[in-house]
């Protein structure tokens, strides 16, 4: 194939989506393991086993795979779950999210929600004190190169990320902004709001969805929370995800209406 390495990456992105998304999450996961190996191993074993088991059962029933896509939400749940959550609680929330958010629709990629955001919301709903949290600053910094890789490959729509940032700025007010929150916001927007299967697919729809996520993060955030309220973040992503198909349908309907006017 012709073109530079970025062009080749973008052409291969659809077929290598799972590998690229796992590669993007590998550095922060590695750091997490290094920081607290004793606490992380049991949780990793629980969430990965639960995710693969769900995917395997549905793949057997339907006679179709692949099943490795579910590892992406599994790793995201490990990164953003509260440290006090038990392994079985994470496994339960993730299993429910994978089944309800993806497998009942035909598998990962056929649903319309970010499975990781759904899992964290289900965790917060099912076990109220367990709200999702941002990982440590060092883990966030380790996640940034992967986020950049996803944006370069086109697996995280840049319009959603940019519009999300604009939405946060507009909702907060430029004077209230804390520059230290830029990296956590970026990670939230790239890995959750710009989920390739959860975000709208039309250009205007992606702008609208990003603005909605950014605005809702600020609107839903608890005033007493210092830094980024991750609960508000995942709820905002989930809400915007629910509206994504409607936003796309609206954009297409308006375009059809304009075409109709132009061509009689």
């Amino acid at each position, binding site marked *: *194939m*012709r073109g530079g390495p970025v062009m080749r990456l*973008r*052409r291969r*992105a*659809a*077929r290598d*989506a799972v590998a690229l998304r796992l590669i993007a999450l590998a550095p922060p996961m590695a750091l997490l393991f290094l920081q607290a190996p004793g606490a992380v191993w049991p949780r990793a074993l629980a969430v990965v086993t639960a995710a693969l088991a769900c995917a395997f059962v549905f793949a057997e029933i339907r*006679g*179709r795979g692949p099943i490795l896509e579910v590892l992406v939400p599994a790793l995201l749940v490990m990164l953003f779950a509260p440290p006090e959550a038990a392994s079985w609680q994470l496994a339960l929330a993730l299993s429910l999210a994978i089944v309800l958010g993806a497998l009942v629709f*035909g*598998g*990962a*990629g*056929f649903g319309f929600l970010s499975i990781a955001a759904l899992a964290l919301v289900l965790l917060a709903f099912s076990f109220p004190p367990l709200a999702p949290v941002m990982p440590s600053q060092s883990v966030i910094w380790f996640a940034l190169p992967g986020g950049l890789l996803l944006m370069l*490959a*086109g*697996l995280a*729509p840049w319009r959603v990320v940019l519009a999300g940032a604009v939405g946060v700025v507009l909702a907060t007010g430029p004077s209230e902004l804390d520059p230290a929150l830029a990296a956590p916001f970026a990670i939230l927007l790239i890995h959750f709001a710009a989920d*390739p*299967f959860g975000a709208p*697919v*039309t250009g205007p729809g992606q702008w609208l969805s990003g603005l909605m996520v950014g605005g809702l993060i600020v609107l839903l955030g608890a005033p007493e929370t210092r830094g980024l309220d991750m609960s508000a973040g995942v709820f905002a992503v989930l809400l915007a995800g629910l509206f994504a198909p409607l936003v*796309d349908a609206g954009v*297409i309907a308006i*375009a*059809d209406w304009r*075409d109709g006017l132009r*061509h009689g």
Partner: protein
Amino acid sequence: MSCLEPDRQDPFGTPARTPRMVRLEASDLPGLRPVACIEEGAEVVPGTPVMHDRARPEIRVVATVAGRVERVETGLGRRAVRVVIRPEGRAMAVPATAAGDTRDVMLAHGIWPDLRTRPFGRVPDPEARPKAILVNALDGAGVAAAQGAPRALGHGLRALCDLTEGPVILCQHGGVALIPAEGRIEIDTAAPRHDGMAFRLRRRCSVAHGGEVWILDVQSAIALGRLRGEGLFDTTRLVEIVAASGEVVGLHRMALGADLADAIEEAGWPRPVSRSLRRNESRIDPRHEPGPPSEQVLGPIVPVPALTATLPMRLRAIPLLRALQIGDAEAARRHGCLDLVEEDMRAASAICASGANYGALLRRVLDELEAGG
């Protein structure tokens, strides 16, 4: 003097090769019901009719080489499948009379079936008048042929103006115009990275909201020009042979329908392929050869920008691909599928992770829309 005469050194390589066999396929005539009009064992010369459409006999396929008809293969209801000719000697341009208007000349010399309509990609009705004609000079072989015969190309494009009230647009990838624009002949030299005839059609004269546009390969326009300008009937085309690596390894002049086995073997394809040069083909690429039909269940579409870029701008790519996957013809029409034909979907099929053959899915939808009027 024609560049096809055996001993002439033309600017784009050796004279036409002598093929082992020439196979004229009925499947090259989409939308027609061809029947054979020649018998096995008959002697033919370039221009002898061998097949014609059952409903409109004036649309005919002619022999592209001198030789003997070895086999006439037919299917259900005497429908022709292919006519196989064993050539006697090299393919070359022969003197011919080009009396009558452009339509008559194209029909009489078997150039008419090279035309394709958008929408639906059919051989057009001779009574119809398109709103424009687009001439495809996007491939390397077509450009080489046009550079070698600019006067014939000019004659051909002027002749095509008789078929339409609208423009005749020569589409090329950047660079110096192959011929100067004049009258209703326009030159589209846009040079975007991902481009094909669907992009030009969408930009210049989309048929998504009605109307019909015809597409013709530049080498067919040159053949028409040679008939009108030089009185020579040329049945050969330049064709690029691509290796498995994607590199062009050969540029050959061949008669339409010529067996490509030798050229493919020279190009070092990993597996031998038995095929002939089809109409409007100027690039033989192993990556585009149809594989066995797959029964695999389709995976999800990963909506990445590279996938969107395979289809023309302002065409809602991901919603269209989803509509094609589920066979929703009405949604596909609203998303602009009428501007497309099978070959426009090759890049999308190659990039998309779903494993879908979007060319076949598009054909199913186009057939449904055509049947529904």
